[in-house]
């Protein structure tokens, strides 16, 4: 599986390991609460570079999934701003309640979820070509050809006409990744995509994500799998109570965390595996 997954390779960018900065994505003072004192993002600030692979770790309810969902435009924020590729993307104080300001920017974000991602009543092929055809105006022939190429690179070409119910969990998630990639996004978001899989299927999905990383796809990953985080991340971000507590290269975070909160969390998590 060495053929490139991305239709066009991302431009090479210089990789400065210690810099926490970046102008690909800039979150400033982002505030999100569900009311009644349930604050999931508490004036959170974070930068990302175009070749970063951010892995966000932290206890439940620390705002990890919320961050992804906000970036995708699934949920709104009540305060702060988010810039994407140098342009204003989301403004918590704007009238549209903190949803993406520019739909074109939103279409450059792709997301893969933990559960029930694929459309169960459509075949794998239909799942892949629906959005390219209906939203981006590709013809059926063009979209089908593209889908074929993606599936072939994932080794799933034989499943073109199968239905999601006939696929294993790992195959479903790989198809879901392909479906998002069909739209040639600039940023991919992965929300615990292997958490619901049986252990033997986790590797196949993680391999796909590693390959995307090698092709320099910008990604933000939320995962519980610390071993995988160590392998794929260019930067690990530890969030707790809606704030970024600490961030840095995986080698540093996992072996020499600076903050006590980080140490506390890692001790609990890494102790088991």
């Amino acid at each position, binding site marked *: 599986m060495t053929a490139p997954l991305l239709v066009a390779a991302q431009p090479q960018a210089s990789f400065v390991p210690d810099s926490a900065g970046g102008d690909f994505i800039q979150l400033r003072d982002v505030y999100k609460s569900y009311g009644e004192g349930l604050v999931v993002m508490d004036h959170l600030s974070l930068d990302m570079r175009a070749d970063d692979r951010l892995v966000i770790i932290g206890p439940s309810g620390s705002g990890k999934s919320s961050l992804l969902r906000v970036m*995708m435009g*699934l949920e709104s924020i009540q305060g702060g701003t988010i810039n994407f590729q140098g342009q204003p993307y989301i403004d918590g104080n704007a009238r549209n309640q903190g949803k993406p300001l520019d*739909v074109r920017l939103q279409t450059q974000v792709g997301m893969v979820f933990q*559960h*029930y991602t694929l*459309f169960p*009543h459509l075949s794998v092929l239909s799942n892949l070509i629906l959005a390219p055809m209906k*939203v981006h105006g590709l013809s059926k022939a063009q979209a089908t050809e593209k889908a074929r190429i993606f599936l072939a690179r994932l080794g799933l070409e034989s499943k073109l006409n199968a239905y999601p119910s006939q696929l294993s969990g790992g195959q479903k998630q790989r198809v879901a990744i392909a479906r998002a990639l069909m739209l040639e996004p600039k940023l991919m978001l992965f929300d615990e995509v292997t958490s619901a899989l049986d252990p033997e299927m986790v590797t196949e999905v993680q391999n796909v994500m590693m390959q995307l990383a090698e092709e320099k796809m910008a990604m933000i990953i939320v995962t519980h799998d610390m071993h995988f985080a160590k392998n794929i991340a260019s930067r690990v971000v530890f969030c707790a109570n809606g704030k970024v507590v600490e961030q840095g290269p995986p080698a540093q975070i996992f072996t020499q965390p600076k903050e006590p909160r980080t140490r506390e969390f890692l001790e609990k998590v890494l102790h088991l595996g």
Partner: protein
Amino acid sequence: MQLDFWVVLSYWQVLAKGLALTLAFTVSCAVLGSVCGFLLSLLRLSKSPLIRIPTGLYVELFRGTPLLIQLFWIFFCLPVVFGISVPPYVSVVLALTLYMTAITSETFRGALKSIPSEQHDACTALGVASWNKVFYVIFPQALLRAVPPLLSNVVSLFKESALISSVGIADLMFVGQNISNSTARPVEFLSAVAVIYFLVAFPLTRLVGVIETRMLRRYAY
């Protein structure tokens, strides 16, 4: 007291006619009611309270009152309200259809609600929005999920149709009661009628179960 079940056989033609009428009413009102129920469930998705409140009230009213009184009201009161004479068959079809409409609109609503929110999220993530999303993703799944409960509703309608005997329609129930009265053999004939209803309703109920497991497992997780 002598029970003689063979007597039932000599009346099979009358019973068959009654059954035919029951089935005719059931099928026609089921079809009409399902279509109208579907349209009604669409209306109930509207944001305007001017549409949502009357339609919601309609559904609650027809689910919260006995079908018998709905039947009597339409049968006896409608001609009075409109000042015209309404043929019995029309009243009965109207009553059963209005009832079925209310029930099926709830079925469709339930089916829509049962679609996991992740499906909506996936559409947002792919940029598939509004008309495309509804037509290609949401409604097909809602219709698929609605089929088993819809079939259950039809079986219920089949049973409830026995009420039309109370306004003189010669359905299976009416015929059975008539014969049992005239032959003074209620046990034989009422039991036979029960068996006939059972022989129709039971396989259909089993069919609902089969459809649920086979079809839904394949196309709706």
